[in-house]
């Protein structure tokens, strides 16, 4: 691409699927409304015209069955992309994900792999209430055998999805429903750097560690903090398995202060794991306790203002960062 082209996160995901399916004829997409409807959030729109109903397979509303079918397809030569319309539906399919896909290579002594991708989306932002708004990445992160990516940017939506479709092991790819209309310049040639966190804003006073939609909240907050003379470094984890411990530890070694921001709930959440890593590996450099600004330990309510109050906001990242700086 000679001219930089602006894409939405949704269009970048669709382009990644199209490019991958064109390059690899063993890729099929299987899920609810992925074909004729084009995906509940439009990610697969039009792909059925290019690849036909045998590669864009509309399924009945049978989450365990469709994910299980993807497991079997992956074991017999296909590279299926199973789409779960909402990550909240994962409970119905969890046996197939956690007991089957995640364990097959190990249980069977390495002889059979499961190169499947589970695409889904989560998070708040649309008043979806308690069963259509959750951030359940900790369930996946807690299960050995699964890889997990959560892209925040347009380019990462593309390059991480393309890379995930080359991996030999079952991979979960959680998009954020509030990011589908996010715009950015797509650089398809950028290396995927799978498993590497990225410093999106360099800073010297504190490190904000985050991923997915909260990256944008953190960057916004960092801009305001800079006006107050607080120089925040913002790290986008990008993949939660593999998890790039080196980058976050190196950053906190430099700044001495860590603020972990997640949309998923506080208790036994991703922020707990990050905080544990930082106290283990950055202990000597910490000026203050590691602070976690996470989703509240409650079901997500439908009322828009309550929904917004259940997760971190740019304003709360700013106020929490100021407290951490004793300002």
């Amino acid at each position: 691409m000679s001219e930089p082209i602006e894409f939405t996160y949704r269009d970048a995901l669709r382009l990644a699927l199209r490019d991958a399916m064109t390059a690899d004829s063993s890729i099929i997409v299987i899920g609810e409304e992925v074909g004729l409807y084009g995906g509940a959030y439009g990610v697969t729109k039009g792909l059925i015209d290019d690849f036909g109903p045998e590669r864009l397979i509309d399924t009945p509303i049978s989450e365990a069955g469709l994910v299980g079918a993807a497991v079997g397809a992956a074991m017999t030569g296909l590279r299926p992309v199973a789409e779960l319309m909402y990550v909240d539906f994962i409970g119905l399919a969890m046996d197939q994900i956690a007991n089957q896909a995640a364990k097959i290579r190990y249980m069977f002594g390495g002889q059979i792999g499961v190169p499947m991708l589970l695409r889904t989306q989560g998070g708040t932002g649309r008043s979806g209430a308690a069963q259509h708004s959750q951030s359940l990445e900790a369930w996946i992160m807690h299960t050995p055998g699964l890889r997990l990516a959560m892209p925040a940017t347009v380019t990462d939506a593309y390059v991480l999805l393309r890379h995930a479709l080359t991996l030999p092991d079952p991979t979960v790819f959680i998009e954020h429903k509030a990011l589908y209309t996010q715009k950015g310049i797509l650089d398809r040639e950028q290396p995927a750097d799978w498993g590497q966190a990225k410093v999106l804003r360099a800073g010297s006073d504190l490190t904000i560690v985050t991923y997915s939609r909260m990256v944008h909240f953190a960057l916004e907050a960092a801009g305001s903090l800079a006006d107050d003379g607080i120089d925040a470094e913002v790290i986008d984890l990008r993949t939660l398995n593999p998890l790039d411990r080196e980058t976050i530890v190196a950053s906190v070694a430099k700044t001495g202060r860590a603020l972990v921001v997640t949309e998923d709930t506080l208790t036994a959440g991703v922020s707990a794991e990050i905080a544990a890593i930082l106290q283990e590996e950055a202990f000597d450099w910490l000026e203050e306790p590691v602070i976690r600004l996470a989703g509240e330990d409650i079901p997500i309510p439908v009322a828009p203002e309550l929904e917004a109050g259940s997760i971190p906001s740019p304003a709360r990242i700013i106020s929490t960062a100021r407290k951490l700086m004793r300002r």
Partner: protein
Amino acid sequence: MNDAPRNSRSTEYYRQLLRVRTFEERVGELFVRGGTAGSMLHLSIGEEAAAVGVTAHMGDGDSFTTHHRGHGIFLARGADPNRMMAEIAGAESGYCAGKGGSMHIADRELGHLGANAIVGGGIPAVIGAGLSARHFKSNAVSVAFFGDGAAQQGVLYESMNMAALWSLPCLFVCINNQYGMGTKIDRSAARTEFEDRATAFGLRGARADGGDVEKVAEVAGELIEAARAGAAGFLVVDCYRFHGHARMDKSPYRDDAEETEGRKTDPLALQRRRLIEDALLSESQCDEIAESVTEEMDAAVDFAIKGRQPAQDALFQDVYAPGQPAPEPVDQRIAKVLAE
């Protein structure tokens, strides 16, 4: 096997039934001798006709999944009893290098996509195998073997619906041994005519007497042929689980009279009687087969006992593919943290 003349076919059925029966008996023996990895061993004695009758129609390229009571199915499909027994012993020389055991045996070569310890957990994989067969335009069939316990699991019905909806080359085989652990079938299902459930979904439904391997093979043959042509099927094989659920189960939920009656449906005894009555084999020829099977399975026990346990460094292997980032051992992490 199914294309062979009747005398050799019937003899082969007998030999296979006997191999499964003897293998399972040897698993019990290996347990008593302390040679198995754990006691979660689920024997298929009394259920052999389902394994032998269905796998007789399977070949290269076909695939299958089984439940936790699946030794006989894999053996009848062509597994090496040595490597099976070694896996049950948790030995490195087993099919899964000692990582899976009795409940998680699998083999890529023979299309065994895995035994499963989650009731019903392996069923939807055959839908995916059916999609692969369609995608790659092969003639392969994929068979899900499970028990009557799984007939009450939701994922079975999701899978049956997809198989019928998409005309996939799949067969569901419900080995109805009357018991889900200690719960008799009439205590877990108001109606036990499972083949009717299948026809309600648009599958070909059939039922066969698991006391007679030839009848099972005949019905299974028709269903598998239809499945290869895209008409998915469902077969119920009625039998009786001769022993308890697992090694530690003394069957307190049923009485001796019931067991005596149930064990009369013995496919092995019937097949031997049939061979002799029809003058296909003599008593002594049957005994000769039994001797050779005994030798084969005794050798499997010896092979398992001689097997080495996997080395500790195998602990972290195969969580992910070779060359991919591997999990960090806890002690290594602690050492690193305290060294700083």
